[in-house]
């Protein structure tokens, strides 16, 4: 954690935290003594590093896994796991608030218990940390080292005073929150996803700087947990990677939740007055100042490449710090690969693990698997969720691919109506005048689950014609996908086809 970060109210060392720490960074851990050449040395034990180590060990390779702080990386300790756990609790409160919408009464005496919510976060985190513990990895045949790794030559590195020889190396050191350069922010203190989940008290007023997935998810969660929440985004819409309709539905959901939405707005400066953080905001020519108790930031990520001595072994980086890799996940040094957030533009856990497995196969088995052939879905876990896979219409247009979108609003789906979850849509993009799926965007309460069907179809080369033949359990929200396929099928009924069918019916 950076020394500039907010000092959250201290977390009592409860049993869950003790278990997690024991799993992630066992007390009294002794690094093994290297015994000969490693066939694969992996630097960084986040999701990508763990996936790579498990695969390499299962192939029978001698593997070293080196971690600077704690096994599990951002995902388990500060990222998706705690974030989604807290979001679930916030949804419970939102559902209770919306009870009259479902013909139910709002339960009497609903007080938000933030401490209990955060306790649950720690319990879940401890539970999931068992799968990725240092001892379990060791039992699987992985030599786990704790310490700072540094390349010495193209086939050696040092960690904790030891020199490790390797045939191939894989860098999976991930990325950390990028802190915007706002005067006064460091002095006033701020939260990032690295320390947000250590909070034990709910900030009464929260400012979220940045309208990417992290900012949007946490702004909604904290608002639903009772914080007066303002979100500022220096662009015209949230979630710049998503399509306009998805971002607009999210903006509307935020307004309904009571989040103060400030688009096209920049945070200029922060100062402390009487214990409150005063933040100067600028929206075009309109300046104002808001008072808050906490600031959450960390829009974007900075790759963790410092101290690795990359240049000395011929590994170069993009301008933003990402390690430059080719389509086979190989760096500028042909013995060294990289995977996950440290080199990918799309920073998702599933992309990190998939890229790591490709790197391992290419490094150890001399395969030529390409990253560009992988279909990567992603999801922002707001309510409604926003999930995407494949090409967007914008990307298809830029590539000169004719594209047509089959859209089913969720209000057309019986199960969405029965559940009063009609905000959103399924949009499936196909190549013009064919049923070949190029990509899709789904906005729905459970869009993250629904997108998997489209991903499967894309990987298996299944088109909309076949999808329309797949019975979907009724009533489910995933029926929207079949309805999109049915809509495609109806477009095949041109007047000529129809008259031919009529002739057949007549005969």
């Amino acid at each position: 954690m950076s020394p500039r970060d907010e000092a959250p109210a201290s977390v009592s060392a409860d049993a869950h935290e003790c278990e997690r720490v024991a799993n992630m960074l066992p007390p009294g851990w002794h690094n093994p003594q290297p015994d000969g050449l490693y066939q694969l040395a992996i630097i960084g034990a986040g999701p990508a590093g763990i996936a790579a180590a498990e695969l390499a060990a299962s192939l029978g390779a001698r593997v070293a896994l080196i971690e600077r702080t704690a096994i599990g990386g951002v995902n388990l300790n500060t990222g998706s796991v705690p974030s989604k756990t807290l979001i679930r609790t916030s949804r419970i409160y939102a559902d209770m608030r919306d009870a009259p919408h479902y013909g139910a009464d709002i339960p009497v005496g609903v007080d938000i218990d933030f401490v209990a919510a955060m306790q649950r976060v720690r319990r879940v985190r401890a539970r999931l940390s068992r799968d990725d513990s240092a001892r379990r990895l060791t039992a699987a045949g992985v030599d786990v080292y704790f310490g700072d790794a540094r390349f010495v030559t193209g086939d050696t590195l040092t960690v904790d005073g030891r020199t490790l020889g390797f045939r191939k190396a894989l860098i999976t050191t991930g990325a950390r929150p990028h802190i915007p350069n706002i005067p006064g922010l460091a002095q006033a203190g701020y939260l990032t996803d690295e320390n947000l989940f250590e909070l034990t008290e709910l900030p009464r007023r929260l400012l979220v700087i940045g309208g990417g997935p992290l900012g949007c998810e946490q702004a909604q969660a904290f608002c639903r947990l009772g914080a007066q929440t303002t979100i500022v985004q220096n662009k015209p819409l949230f979630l710049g990677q998503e399509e306009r309709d998805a971002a607009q539905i999210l903006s509307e959901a935020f307004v309904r939740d009571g989040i103060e939405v400030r688009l096209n707005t920049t945070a200029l400066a922060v100062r402390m007055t009487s214990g409150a953080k005063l933040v100067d905001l600028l929206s075009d020519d309109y300046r104002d100042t808001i008072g808050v108790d906490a600031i959450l930031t960390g829009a974007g990520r900075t790759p963790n490449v410092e101290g690795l001595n990359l240049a000395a072994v011929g590994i170069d980086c993009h301008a933003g710090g990402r390690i430059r890799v080719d389509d086979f996940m190989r760096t500028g040094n042909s013995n060294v690969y990289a995977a996950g957030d440290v080199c990918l533009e799309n920073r998702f856990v599933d992309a990190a693990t998939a890229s790591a497995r490709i790197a391992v196969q290419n490094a150890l088995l001399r395969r030529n698997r390409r990253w560009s052939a992988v279909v990567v879905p992603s999801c922002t876990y707001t309510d409604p969720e926003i999930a995407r896979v494949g090409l967007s219409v914008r990307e298809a247009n830029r590539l000169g691919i004719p594209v047509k979108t089959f859209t089913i609003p969720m209000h057309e789906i019986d199960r969405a109506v029965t559940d009063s979850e009609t905000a959103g849509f399924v949009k499936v993009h196909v190549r013009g005048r064919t049923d070949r799926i190029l990509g899709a965007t789904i906005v729905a309460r459970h869009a993250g689950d629904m997108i998997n069907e489209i991903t499967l179809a894309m990987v298996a080369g299944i088109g909309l014609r076949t999808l329309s033949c797949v019975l979907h359990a009724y009533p489910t929200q995933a029926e929207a996908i079949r309805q999109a396929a049915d809509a495609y099928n109806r477009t095949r009924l041109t007047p000529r086809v129809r008259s031919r069918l009529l002739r057949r019916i007549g005969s």
Partner: protein
Amino acid sequence: MAQFPPVDEALLDQLQRAAFEYFPKATNPLNGLVADNSRVNSPVSIAVVGFALAAYPVGVERGWMRRDDAVQCVLAALRFFRHSDQSGSSTATGFKGFYYHFLDIDAGARVWHSELSMVDTALLIGGMLAASQYFDSTSSDESELRALVDFLYRRVDWQWAQDGADTIRQGWKPECGFLHYGWEGYSEAILLYALALGSPTHPIAGDCYRKWTLTYQWENLYDIDCLYAGPMFIHQFSHAWIDFRGIRDEFMREKRSDYFENSRSAICIQREYARRNPREFAGYDENCWGLSACDGPSDERPDLPNERRRLYGYAARSVPYGPDDGTLSVPCVLASLPFAPEIVLPAVRSMLTRFPETWQEGRLASGFNPTLADTDGHAWVSAGHYGLDQGIVLMMIENHRSERLWQLTRENRHIRAGLHEAGFRGGWLQQSSSAGAR
């Protein structure tokens, strides 16, 4: 155009004349500027001035206004803009040939810290060109009128508004420079691009338009193929000036459609949405629809932080994803007339019969909300009238009845050149103009 029953002709005549009467009433005769709406202290909207300039030829043709008076109204506005403060200061009228969105009706100076608006300037210039095309006599006044329009059009620096980007910026303010509202997706900007591409002095590059169309989405929604845009006005505002029947850009050629057909599809989608009425608002059905930019009820409480909103005030309402708070716009339905009269006329009759309270002083209110009915069952109705509503209604009824405004712009060489540069081909663009394009 097809003949309609006398009862419809009479109704249309009545509604169109009432819309026309908004402009003389809302105009400052000293400078030709027109109020945005009929409420007290309303500022001028430059887009409404553009609609007024197009309304005067209609008024003359329909016998509602003497030609000399119309010329004087147009001249007053043109002379004002010709001599207006173009310094771009915070209290000027414009900059680089563009104008601030809202102006003081007496001094013509910028108000409300409004932005220098590219699309609203385009609507103003569109009105100027229509007037210039219509007032074609050799009298000194009409000659001056045409010279002024030519000067004002040539003065607009469309290249500057591109700001080095792929597409034209939406706005600019002296306090902060260009605004960064996204131009993503189909919008009402075709007229803006046609004028910018056809400029004899500061044209933008042709691929600027193509880059904009790369953000389009061609969708199948409710089994209807459509270039999607949620609010109805997007399917009308360029169409009021330009006859899109049979002319196609590269995008529409590939889709085997055109922007006129597309507006017809948008009407069908609006109607389908209202029939399904997913949010269960009162009044909605296949003959009661119209989600667009309009005035509606508001529950905004500026004194309360983080209040939950259900009503959106003046907003661009949209199908099928919203915002939708139960507010509908009769003007946007009526302005759809040329695209689908067989759908629009029954809808207008039905809405006016069921909600006569939306018809005030003979003119249509901007928005009404039947879900928020009073104890007598009367829908919530927006107070007064908005110039944009009256302008688009007047122009679209006229295009439906006589195609007069379409004919005027079809004859304009700048608009023809701009459309051609944007890649439009076919239809009337292939024919030479009747009297030699000006």
